[in-house]
């Protein structure tokens, strides 16, 4: 499978932001990032059983002086809510890239409720939400949002729209 160049540029933006810990719950839209992170000897890449673990992992990394990112899809956002009190209360950065489901050409109705709620519940929980819709500015969006999180010590989520990543195709 050929990798879209915008995904390469997102990985380079994370490296430029000095991210060295990556936690993830897999998503097809993050597959390239996950593979690149595992292949990078300077990055500790941690597979999680549930998304809230990634918030705690990021907090621990920050306590120890490292910057991290958490990769998840929108269906996992609901698992995070109480754990988001950790970066908010401790005035820590938290940086997450969220691939959106349930919005652009979605086949699976079970993805729609959490996809619809994602920007709202993140905002309500104290996360600053940005949205990347276009391949040509997604890396810039990631770089600027990482700076916002790590320099201003706040939680920031970048939502990768389903149009950007491409709707998952189900074959009957």
């Amino acid at each position, binding site marked *: 499978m050929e990798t879209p160049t915008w995904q390469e540029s997102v990985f380079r933006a994370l490296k430029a932001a000095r991210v060295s*810990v990556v936690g993830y719950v897999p998503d097809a839209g993050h597959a390239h990032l996950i593979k690149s992170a595992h292949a990078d000897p300077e990055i500790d890449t941690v*597979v999680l*059983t549930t998304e809230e673990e990634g918030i*705690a992992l990021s907090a*621990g990394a*920050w*306590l*120890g*002086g490292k910057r991290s990112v958490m990769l998840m899809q929108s269906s996992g956002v609901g698992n995070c809510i109480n754990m988001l009190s950790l970066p908010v209360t401790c005035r820590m950065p938290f940086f997450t890239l969220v691939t959106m489901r349930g919005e652009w050409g979605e086949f699976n109705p079970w993805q729609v409720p959490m996809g619809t709620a994602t920007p709202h519940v993140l905002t309500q929980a104290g996360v600053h939400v940005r949205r990347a819709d276009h391949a040509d500015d997604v890396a810039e969006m990631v770089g600027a949002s990482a700076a916002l999180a790590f320099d201003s010590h706040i939680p920031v989520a970048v939502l990768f729209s389903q149009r950007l990543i491409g709707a998952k195709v189900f074959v009957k």
Partner: protein
Amino acid sequence: MSETKRNDGTLDRREAVSVLLRDPGDLLVVTGLGAATYDVGVLGDRDQNFYLWGAMGGTAMIGLGLALAQPKKRVLVVTGDGEMLMGMGSLASVAAAKAPNLAIAVLDNARFGETGSQHSHTGLTTDLEAVAAACGWTATATARDMAEVEALRSRLRAEPLFAVIRIAPDEKPRFIPPRDGAFVTERFRRALGIVEN
């Protein structure tokens, strides 16, 4: 007051924790919300202690992030059975990450002590040491007397060990370590010499 069960632990929680943390040196300690935070705090506030007052279920993963970021330091997570049960999946994530400098000590009274001492799963059907072993922790232990706690003290500072300490269910006087998370975070990072990130 809940009835005593046959499988209740007998150890004094404060005595056990005071043994585990005797001469802590530069040990980095992360404490789970509730009594584990009080038990560690009452021994004397340290810059290298990170106390949780919330984020239930996250203590082990905070320990993992810290251990990955500080590979030359030892990290000890001290938490309760209820907190560990909520983050049980993290036993799998931590084992898979194979951080050699992280250990976990669970103070297991088989109770949710903060909320009315309801029985937890460890007093009903769940064996956390067996759960950890099944998740891939190669070093696990359960301490039932003070000699076993004493033996854990050095192992928890040398091995990636998951240890259960079977404490008695009685409540201790509450002790209140700092609960301003931003203060504790900044103090912790400064103690590690992290000035900019």
